[in-house]
């Protein structure tokens, strides 16, 4: 069992409070995939009638664990005990039969159907072949009453807000007789009032004797609602904690680990001239709150400005706005002294903006096209790949070969289809292509996501070298190693605003984690 920091409690096996068996107990769960161990020796104990939170980073293995618990795959080692009985779950149907209900993070609802139709689909009450709507309405009304969900069965789901939709998902699960609910990142998309409503619902559920397992990163919320917490890191259980006696900072420390890489000392290459200025940039979103809310930001030549933050706090929208893929609801974007707020994406790129997109498969490359065509993508209007209105195929291929050599892109040749390359090599090609256009500003969103460690180190080298040459880089990332070792200036983004500006050389993990999750005292914009 791992040691946890002070305040963490690591229970011994079989220690249930009182003599009631645990509602859910996982012992020594291990799950392997080709090349990586996703879960190693996981221990989990959830009492009946409690709200149990599981916290852990992306890639810590939570997803895999939940799929095991929901019967989507079988663990390689370990046992699952439900109410003290050892159970094998072969499929989600088994899990449902055992009373486990999963409320997915991405809702599975048909917009054009009513609440009633969505809830009963697949388990409809019938009377002589006809759908028995009265019976369905009665049962849904009962569930809604009992657990205070406040659902009107005849409303179209399309008209419901996010909080209500989540309650429909909960009702779906309760309708099928779940006694243990798993909620995957339920507060990810809720505004504070909706979060309070949800916590009220959870309290109702547990009051009625149901058990709730709750996956989240928002430590302040977790501490508010959970009865007990289990922390997972790097595929294994770090320990469990009692929210009453553990502070958010201690939790953040457990999640992040107390060692952070010390940034290499290097000379500052930051120059005087600003290359990108954002003033009051605001981007609207479908919900009430703007996705990006009055952001002021400056990137100088030779500077790497990093933006840290839990994903989903407006970073993607900010990137889209800078690249011209999304319109601004307010504010100004200035590139090298020129206002470019109304410019098209192509114009921005042509004037020296490079882009490493977050999702390279969707926005960064043409998977079925050969590498040399991918070299051209984003730079269709400039040499060397282009000569007048024509594409200079030979020059493009030659340049692709050059990039492959310089940036160590491992592939048979420039005619290889992009889909055949590994993620790391694809990303190296993208970095090489963007650098080759000698940009003034590089917008890099999660540049080493899904990339193996070797390629990651190589890309960091490249970014550092370019920075020394005077390139301004805006770096958005969820990888703290990356942010701390590369950034000259570090901002933290939370709920669409930049809430803190930190010195990467001096920041501590608790500080960073605290700002990112809003648990810090005096964190601005926390509501």
């Amino acid at each position, binding site marked *: 069992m791992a040691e946890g920091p002070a305040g963490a409690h690591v229970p011994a096996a079989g220690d249930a409070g009182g003599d009631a068996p645990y509602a859910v107990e996982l012992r020594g769960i291990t799950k392997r995939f080709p090349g990586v161990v996703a879960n190693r020796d996981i221990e989990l104990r959830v009492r009946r009638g409690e709200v149990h939170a599981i916290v852990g980073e992306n890639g810590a293995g939570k*997803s895999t664990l939940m799929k095991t618990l929901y019967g989507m795959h079988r663990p390689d080692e370990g046992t699952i005990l439900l109410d003290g009985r050892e159970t094998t779950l072969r499929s989600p149907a088994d899990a449902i039969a055992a009373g486990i209900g999963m409320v997915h993070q991405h809702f599975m609802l048909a917009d054009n159907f009513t609440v009633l139709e969505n809830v009963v689909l697949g388990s409809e009450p019938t009377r002589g072949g006809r759908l028995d709507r009265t019976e369905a309405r009665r049962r849904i009304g009962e569930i809604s009453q009992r657990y205070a969900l406040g659902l009107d069965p005849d409303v179209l789901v399309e008209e419901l*807000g996010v909080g209500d939709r989540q309650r429909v998902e909960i009702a779906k699960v309760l309708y099928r007789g779940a006694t243990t609910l798993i909620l995957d990142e339920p507060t990810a998309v809720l505004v504070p009032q909706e979060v309070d409503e949800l916590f009220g619902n959870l309290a109702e559920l547990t009051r009625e004797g149901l058990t709730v397992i709750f996956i989240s990163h928002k430590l302040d919320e977790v501490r508010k609602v959970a009865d007990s917490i289990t922390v997972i890191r790097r595929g294994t259980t770090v320990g469990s904690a009692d929210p009453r006696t553990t502070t958010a900072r201690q939790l953040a420390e457990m999640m992040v680990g107390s060692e952070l890489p010390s940034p290499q000392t290097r000379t500052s290459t930051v120059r005087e001239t600003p290359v990108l200025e954002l003033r009051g940039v605001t981007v609207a979103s479908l919900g009430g709150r703007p996705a990006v809310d009055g952001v002021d930001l400056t990137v100088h030549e030779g500077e790497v400005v990093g933006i840290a933050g839990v994903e989903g706090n407006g970073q993607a929208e900010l990137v889209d706005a800078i690249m011209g*893929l999304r319109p601004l609801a307010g504010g100004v974007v200035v590139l090298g002294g020129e206002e470019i707020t109304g410019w098209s994406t192509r114009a921005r790129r042509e004037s020296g903006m490079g882009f490493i997109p977050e999702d390279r498969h*969707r926005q960064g*490359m043409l998977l079925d096209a050969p590498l040399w065509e991918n070299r051209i993508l984003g730079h*269709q209007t400039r040499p060397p790949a282009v000569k007048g209105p024509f594409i200079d195929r030979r020059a493009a291929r030659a340049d692709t070969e050059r990039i492959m050599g310089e940036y160590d892109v491992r592939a048979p040749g420039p005619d290889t289809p992009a889909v055949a390359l590994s993620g790391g*090599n694809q990303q190296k090609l993208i970095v090489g292509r963007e650098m080759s256009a000698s940009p003034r500003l590089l917008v890099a969103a999660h540049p080493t996501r899904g990339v193996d460690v070797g390629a990651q180190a190589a890309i960091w080298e490249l970014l550092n070298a370019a920075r020394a040459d005077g390139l301004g880089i805006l770096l958005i990332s969820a990888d703290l190693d990356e942010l701390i070792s590369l950034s000259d200036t570090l901002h933290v983004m939370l709920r669409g605003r930049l809430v803190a500006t930190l010195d990467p050389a001096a920041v501590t993990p608790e500080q960073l984690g605290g700002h990112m999750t809003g648990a810090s005292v005096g964190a601005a914009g926390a509501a």
Partner: protein
Amino acid sequence: MTALRRLGSALVAPALAVVVAVVITAVVILLIGENPSTALRVLLDFGDTPAQQTQAIVVILNRAVPLFLSGLAVAVAFRMGLFNIGVEGQYRMATVLAAGAGAAVALPGPLHVLLIIVVAMAVGALWAGIVAVLKVTRGVSEVISSIMLNFIALGTASWLLTGPLRGSEEGAAIITTTDIPESGRFPDLNGLFDVVGLAQPRSGLYGFLLVAVVVGVAVAVVLTRTRFGFDLRATGMSPSAATASGVDARRMVIKTMLISGGIAGLIGLPDLLGDTHHFGTEFTAGLGFLGIAVALLGRGSPTGIAFAALLFAFLDRAAVPLQFADIPASVVTIIQGTIVLAVVIANELARQLTRRRAERGSGQGGPPTDDGTSAGPGGPVGTRITDDRQEAGA
């Protein structure tokens, strides 16, 4: 992958489709009590005398030219991710108006022909443009609007033919527009046969063949070697990547449909300028849908479409001789229809196979991560705190 291997793998799907279609047709022929090899013999029988043989070649080529143009029109839209089912209506409108314009003026030779071509392309482009504008401004599906416009074209052409552009007398069985004078006719290429040393065929080999070749080359060059063509193909492959690279999606839709319609306008011209010299109730219909078949079989590339057009024309030519051998001519339509279905199924299977093989080859396919993507190969994932955001309102 060497060029030869790539060519080979590109041919597999269409070749397989043709084989399957041939097998099915053979079975069908057997069912009616005839011998499939008779059908094969008829297909390959080009006639006894040299003149008959060159005649057969001419018939095939003449039939292939409009098919080729139709396939090109459809393919240009296909490569961009659009479905231009309206080719049928576009070429009908273009041909009737071009015939009318051609008959109404008298210009010196080449100019007259040029006028007819320009009118045809402009009308075709405009008719297709309606679809594009409706799609871009009102969000109307291009499939439905094209089909509706096909019928509107049918009715309008019929009205023009029996009304303002009528050339035949009252009570004529077949109604046509006024004949285009000599200066508006495209000379045939039969001189070539003398040059090559073959016998003279009965009919004229359409001179428009040259125009079609030029158009085909132009389309190939534009698609593969120009910036615009790159943008077009990128939009077809991945609209999101194209937009991120700076392509304006709505302008692209309009430009593509205009080009597709312009090429479609040319479809009726080989017959108009080289054979009938008027548009009438008997004018070839159905070339729009056959163009879809040809474009699919040719996998959207001009060379492939050329071969596919030749194949379909080759099959079409056999319709009459087949009947003499007691095999119904509709066998040809069945082969063509089966080829289309077989080709799309084969293409789809091929696409899934290559994707899966490529993904496996690069070692992708690791444990699921919270954002739904594969984690990929390699060591432990770094320290991250992430949180997946769901679109507000899902």
